[in-house]
């Protein structure tokens, strides 16, 4: 384990743990290349119990990171699942040992395109190998191995995190006791690939992208990345949520008859875009959205999703949200139907919410009650005592 501190693209020091996979233990990627060295940045919460049966791996989404329940080192904001994590909370740190690592290709400490390619001494940029959701999970497997954990009590995550959850359950079923994919899918839909492409093209069209070599030129494609984020952010919300939040409210007192942010929703989106570029690397955005596009569990199993789950002993809890149009309920239902087809142990709840895809990050009491109940039931089956027992 390395003790050196890593830095974000904006130069901030990134706290937390690191695992370094040396040249003797490269990561074999789907694209055929071996990647080494690989740094995996991660955070843990709670304590691993004596028989190492209480570990929960949390998988973060596209632009998330491993600061699940810490003050974020760049934005200064609370962790993205701060409300769920802590003593006596749903992800009870007195009971469970929580692990979350920054995904492969990321820009918050885990090896990604902004890092130096040791062979050239220059940032990888677009020479970084193409990665997949399976590659991200391979890196997580190495981390879980390193921590000495045979079987995770649970793997949980929303959106792209849910893709990783499904990948874990399919490729490493004996290492997963429960799998909780939230607001996710077994494949990226054509519409989602289309949105991904809009975002990528916005980045690529920015002259400061410099064919991917912006770091060499001391530049960053901030405008392109901000536009990508603005477009994507709309897909994370719902029409109802946008309307409730902003309506047609004006930013100032009257229309300007120009192209400034007349409407509050414009100002909000601009803020989302500009604050995102402070904490995210543009090439990471290209690589990770591509990984999501490539994800298709059924394709790896003869086109039949049920085949991916055949014989599984994993207990699944699939959760979707009514107003999520990016990963709509029918995508979750397709996973549930495939699990039914192999008589797997599955719970499925569609939570009523008007908050869109982002609902999994927000205070949704029904979602939280579902999560709590499922984990309680599973912990009972696994023989995990409650804290203090």
């Amino acid at each position, binding site marked *: 384990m390395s003790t050196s501190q890593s830095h974000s693209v904006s130069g901030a020091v990134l706290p937390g743990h690191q695992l370094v996979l040396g040249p003797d233990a490269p990561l074999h990627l789907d694209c055929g290349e071996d990647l080494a060295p690989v740094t995996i940045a991660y955070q843990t919460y709670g304590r691993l119990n004596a028989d190492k049966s209480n570990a929960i791996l949390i998988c973060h989404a596209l632009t998330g990171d491993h600061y699940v329940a810490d003050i974020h080192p760049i934005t200064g904001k609370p962790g993205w699942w701060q409300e769920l994590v802590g003593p006596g909370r749903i992800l009870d740190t007195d009971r469970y040992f929580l692990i979350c690592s920054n995904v492969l290709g990321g820009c918050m400490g885990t090896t990604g395109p902004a890092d130096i390619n040791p062979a050239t001494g220059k940032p990888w940029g677009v020479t970084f190998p193409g990665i997949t959701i399976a590659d991200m999970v391979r890196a997580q497997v190495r981390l879980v191995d390193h921590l000495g954990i045979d079987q995770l009590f649970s793997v949980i995550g929303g959106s792209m995190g849910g893709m990783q959850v499904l990948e874990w359950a399919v490729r490493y079923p004996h290492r997963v006791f429960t799998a909780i994919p939230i607001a996710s899918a077994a494949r990226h839909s054509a519409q989602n690939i289309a949105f991904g492409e809009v975002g990528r093209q916005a980045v690529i069209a920015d002259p400061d992208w410099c064919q991917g070599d912006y770091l060499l030129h001391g530049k960053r494609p901030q405008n392109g990345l901000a536009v990508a984020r603005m477009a994507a952010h709309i897909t994370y919300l719902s029409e109802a949520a946008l309307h409730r939040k902003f309506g047609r409210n004006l930013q100032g007192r009257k229309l300007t008859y120009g192209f400034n942010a007349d409407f509050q929703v414009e100002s909000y989106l601009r803020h989302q875009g500009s604050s995102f570029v402070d904490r995210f690397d543009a090439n990471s955005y290209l690589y990770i959205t591509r990984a999501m596009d490539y994800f298709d569990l059924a394709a790896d199993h003869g086109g039949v999703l049920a085949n991916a789950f055949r014989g599984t002993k994993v*207990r699944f*809890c*699939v959760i979707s949200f009514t107003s999520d149009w990016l990963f709509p309920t029918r995508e979750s239902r397709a996973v*549930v*139907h495939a699990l*039914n*087809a*192999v*008589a797997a*142990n*599955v*719970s*499925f*709840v*569609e*939570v*009523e919410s008007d908050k869109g895809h982002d609902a999994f990050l927000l205070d949704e009491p*029904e979602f939280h*009650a*579902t999560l*709590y*109940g*499922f984990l*309680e*039931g*599973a912990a*009972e089956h696994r023989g995990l005592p409650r804290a203090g027992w």
Partner: protein
Amino acid sequence: MVNGSANGMSAASIRVDLQLVADMVEPNSRVLDLGCGEGILLDYLHRFKQVDGRGMELSMAGVRAAVAHGLSVIQGDADTDLKDYPSGAFDYVILSQTLQATREPKGVLEHMLRIGRRAIVSFPNFGHWRVRLSLLRHGRMPMTETLTYQWYDTPNIHLCTIRDFMALCDELGIVIERAISLDSKGTIRFDAGGRLANLLGEQAVFLLKRR
């Protein structure tokens, strides 16, 4: 669909018709409960019969409550979602007080006995004397303690009598292993195959298997 207050979760005593269903289930078996509501029967079977249980429920409120209580329940519709399940996946497939609310009772019954080695079905008996008398006296769609809905808002679109049900089983080549009918108090029980059951039984519980 039928009167009877839902007991609290993990209660040792459950509604009489659910108790009759539960009594038909062998311990340590695999059970799929269709229309499981909040999972009261599943919870009972898990706690007292060590059953590996799964549930399917149409209403999201029911599903959420069941999953929040740690039960394996999915949101789904018995009319459309049973085709996904493989044959012989369960020891018992249970349909309590829901058959009459399905669009295709016959198809549902066939799927139940494909998926499960046995099926347990309970339903309100439309041949009960009160129902007959109500229709005879008032000339209007019967409303009784068991059938509490008006004709225009009832979810019970395929009501049947005990004799109707037995005729369907016969047509489908289904063997009736046990048949119990109970009166409104749930205390007096008849053999539902008996002659008086269709007149005196307010509800019926059948244990079925493939021929």
